[in-house]
């Protein structure tokens, strides 16, 4: 009998945009700093943020 696991949470992009930079500049800065510190990027999944004016009800996902 196999064991079912709950899915890992998925990152969400923040609402709007940075005030002083572009998203590309932020991504480049993150990668540059990690490289300078000898860290290897381990990419995660990030989804677009929701439209904030939609429903605020907590979502109930069906079990897998």
């Amino acid at each position, binding site marked *: 009998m196999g*064991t*079912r*696991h*709950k*899915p*890992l*949470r*998925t*990152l*969400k*992009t*923040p*609402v*709007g*945009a*940075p*005030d*002083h*930079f572009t*998203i590309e*500049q*932020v*991504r*480049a*800065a*993150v*990668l*540059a*700093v*990690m490289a*300078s*510190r000898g*860290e290897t*990027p*381990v*990419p*995660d999944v*990030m*989804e*677009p*943020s*929701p*439209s*904030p*004016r*939609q*429903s*605020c*009800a*907590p*979502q*109930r*996902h069906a*079990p*897998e």
Partner: protein
Amino acid sequence: MTATESVFINCPFDADYQPLFRALIFAVQDCGFVARSALERDDGSEVRIEKIRRIIGESAFGVHDISRTEADAGSGLPRFNMPLELGIFLGAKYYGGGEQARKACVIFDRERYRYQAFCSDLAGHDIMPHAGDEREVIRGVRDSARSWIPDRTLPGSTAMFERYRRFVESLPELAAGLDALPDELTFSDLSFVTAHWLEMNQPPVAVPDPAAG
């Protein structure tokens, strides 16, 4: 995706609170939510309390820190913005009807029972003490999020704090790479820097939860 992913962060914004604010944003985002704040950018035409009311209405969850409800040295009176915003959130939950009734939140203070001296009607809510410790706010957000969205696996709070510590160590260099100082990053700036750092730093182990089996 819907605004079910939004978490309204109600906390002080002064310089002394910045480490805890960063920890709150990090934990909310690392739990897979969108951090929302009265500091997020708008078109400048919205009255502050209306903006707060709107964001609360759009957020299924809330993180409230009432630890700064204390007498001001100058006036002798406490600042009451955080309890007021907590009250709006609870009012939306109790009187908003429909989906608003399913709102959930975590309430932080410095000590667990301190609220009894200034807002005893909060009795019955579970107040999480953080003692000004970033590790405790991360643990509080993470453990609350686990009950809000029980069908997700979240990074463990110890692992989350360790990754947060690495993020904070990197923050001066990250800001410098953007020609800024860490304290110059606005809420929106910091949210995006945090999100993209997390995007490149997946938790090392997605811990299976036996309860999900």
